[in-house]
């Protein structure tokens, strides 16, 4: 818009004073839209970032068999069954590798939260990490990679249960956790203290996500610990995590389940929900994220459309009301682009008013949502971004009516209808 356009600001304001209510309505509408859309888009962005994080594993080829134990078993029997089950699973055609754990990536819960200190006397708040029970096959099964150190040895895997007191002496951690425990230093072969006692870090993983999908553990999603144990848990059973050879999952799943049943009948595998692929787990774990993103996204689009429609409607009305005045201006020498500029500038002023009011509303709404829905504080650039969107939207919406106004012939000034 040229300087000539801006000189019209005075007359525009004078004209708007004659349409106080209509102007106020557009201002209000733009303000409310800005408040809702900036918060909604912020929610969408956080959710999309959250749900598109990689788990770090070979997701496409991994499935999980949720196995519960039959009645009348004891810890020793369950441990023997688990060893035999794992041997049987690893022998199934199409199975690349398998291990047993209490939780699995993308599951949505159940991981064991553990506290980690870097010295035995540390009095400051310990770091938090999420543990997976693992054995020497875990890294191969998950398709994750060591960036330093070594894998567990078979003789380092212990039995964990309500009757066992042995604790591990070695663990493997992710690079993220290693960096938080020993910022800027090498974590390999360092000793850290779990609640049960000291352990040595023998390996550092490239990356591995914890099992939680919710928002409360977001800051430690990548702070994962592999703990060398087989958990013989009578009440909750175990998860057999199985990696199939690429492309063979459909055939491998029934074969793996059949192998377990052939091995022993003292178990429960739910025929409907007993087997979960990580792909399904991802869909399930992030269902809420996806639905909130979808809901907020569609509401934002609808709102922007509604606001645009409202601006089109009202500006058309104003244009039709002012045909005579426009004709007079044209007859007195105003060019078409002056008229066009007039309406664009008018819209810009009104939308700006809405944006000023809306920015206040947007931050107020953000503060309200902060408490109720565990939402983070909106970064400063969200509202300006939404404001630019609304300015553009307003200009596009008013373009049609403004061009019709600009097309008004000077003769309209004297035409009687």
């Amino acid at each position: 818009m040229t300087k000539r356009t801006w000189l019209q600001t005075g007359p525009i304001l004078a004209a708007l004073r004659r349409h106080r209510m209509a102007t106020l309505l557009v201002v209000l509408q733009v303000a409310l839209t800005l408040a809702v859309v900036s918060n909604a888009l912020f929610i969408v962005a956080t959710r999309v970032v959250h749900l598109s994080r990689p788990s770090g594993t070979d997701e496409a080829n991994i499935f999980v068999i949720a196995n519960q134990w039959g009645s009348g078993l004891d810890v020793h029997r369950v441990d023997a069954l688990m060893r035999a089950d794992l041997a049987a699973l690893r022998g199934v055609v199409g199975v690349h590798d398998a291990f047993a754990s209490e939780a699995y990536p993308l599951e949505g819960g159940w991981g064991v939260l553990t506290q980690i200190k870097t010295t035995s006397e540390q009095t400051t708040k310990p770091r938090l990490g999420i543990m997976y029970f693992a054995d020497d096959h875990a890294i191969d099964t998950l398709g994750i990679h060591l960036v330093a150190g070594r894998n567990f040895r078979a003789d380092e895997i212990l039995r964990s249960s309500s009757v066992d007191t042995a604790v591990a002496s070695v663990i493997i951690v992710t690079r993220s956790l290693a960096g938080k425990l020993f910022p800027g230093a090498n974590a390999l072969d360092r000793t850290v203290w779990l609640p049960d006692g000291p352990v040595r870090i023998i390996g550092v993983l490239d990356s591995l996500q914890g099992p939680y999908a919710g928002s409360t553990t977001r800051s430690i999603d990548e702070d994962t610990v592999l703990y060398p144990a087989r958990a013989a848990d009578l009440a909750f059973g175990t998860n057999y995590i199985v990696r199939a050879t690429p492309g063979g999952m459909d055939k491998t799943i029934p074969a793996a389940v059949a192998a377990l049943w052939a091995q022993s009948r003292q178990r429960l595998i739910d025929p409907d929900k007993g087997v979960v692929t990580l792909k399904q787990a991802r869909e399930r774990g992030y269902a809420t994220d996806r639905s909130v993103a979808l809901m907020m996204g569609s509401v934002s689009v609808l709102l922007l459309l509604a606001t645009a429609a409202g601006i089109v409607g009202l500006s058309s009305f104003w244009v039709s009301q002012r045909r005579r005045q426009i004709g007079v201006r044209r007859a007195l020498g105003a060019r078409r682009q002056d008229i066009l500029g007039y309406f664009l500038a008018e819209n810009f002023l009104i939308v700006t008013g809405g944006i000023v009011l809306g920015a206040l509303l947007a931050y107020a709404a953000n503060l309200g949502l902060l408490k109720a829905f565990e939402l983070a504080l909106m970064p400063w650039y969200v509202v300006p971004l939404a404001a630019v969107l609304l300015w553009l939207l307003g200009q596009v919406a008013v373009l049609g009516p403004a061009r019709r106004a600009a097309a008004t012939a000077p003769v309209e000034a004297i035409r009687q209808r």
Partner: protein
Amino acid sequence: MFGYYLGLALRSFRGSRVLTALIIVLMGVGVATCMVAWSVFRVTAADPLPGRSATLFVPQVDNFGPTRTNQGEPPNLLSHADAMALWHARGHTPTTLLYPVSFVHDPDDGTGQPSGLDGDAVTRDFFAMFGAPFAQGHVWSQADDEDGAALVVISDRLNRRLFGGDNSIGRSMNLDGHAFRVVGVLGPWQPWPRFYDVASTGTAFIAPGDIYLPLRKAIALAKRSLTGYCSAVAADPNIPDFNAWVHSECVWIGAWVQLRDAADVARYRQFLVAYATTQQQMGRFAWEPNIRLTGLNAWLASQRVIPKATNLSMMVALSFLLIAMVNVVGLMLARFMRRSTEIGVRRALGASRAAIYRQFGTEAVAIGMAGALLGMGLTWLGIRGVHLVFEPTIAAWAHMDLPLMLGTVVLAVGATFLAALYPTWRAAQVQPAWQIKTDD
């Protein structure tokens, strides 16, 4: 006269097609968004037992003490000692103790694979208090309750699955390796949300279980609840010895009582206080009696059963409708003021202000009706697509019914009428003479 206004309204729709269509679409979409959000909200906020819920209460007794409770609130469940004490002292007050259990069912013939069966260990008042109907057989006796007999009541769903829907009273079921005799089969029973053991399960949006057995039998079999927590800071439901667990101050049994009226409630509250006082005098509680007696719906609210996503969607939908209404006010204003000439002429020909109010009021209602029709269609579509946005277990219960349709009409017409108030007032202010003098 009303017919004339309607005619005028229809004529004006033709006159400003785009504006009218815009208003109808805005109202339709705004109202439909609200109704879809509400259809989900009412599922999560539903009263599980209409007509009966006002008489059902959850008693709580604080056995943790002020330093271990959460902000002074007694635990949600009872310890075995307190649960049994309330049960033995129940007198004529219907009292249910319960906890959710999971059993392994192994078919006797050894053919089928063992499967897991979920349900609750309950005392016999459970069925009468919560209106669970018996299709076959009946509830076990008082004596069976006391002795913990090996009896089981099963759901109609399980009866169909295991016994093909036959009369299965007296048949035997192998649960965790123990023989149980079927004494009853429930008819269709779907309390929603599943309120009775929500304090243990943590989620109320699941179907009821398939098996119900005497609570004392489950305890005799050392059957643990799915959840339970202890007053120690490190909650440890895995106290290895079941007997120690039963006699601990850990809480794991849910309790419900049925109280007829306010006097009954007051009496029971006194009883709870007296009980806690006795425990204090005996030295078990080192604190003043701290008890609660909470009605069913208040209990569901305190358990935060309603998912946050449903609340959020309701708020989003309402703000969307509000913005749509602001929009409609502007568009209505444009529609009405465009017809200043027409109004001026009508006024000059003798139409009173009241007549103008009636004319434009009629028009607003007509537009609102059109918005309601569109809104109903969109609501229907939205409910069919609701599973895309909400958890499937909840979405499955969202449906369109008469209250929802009436709600759509009332909301659409009401909102449009409200939005038309100011534009109508402006229209009625149009001066007859001034309008005739000018040409637009």
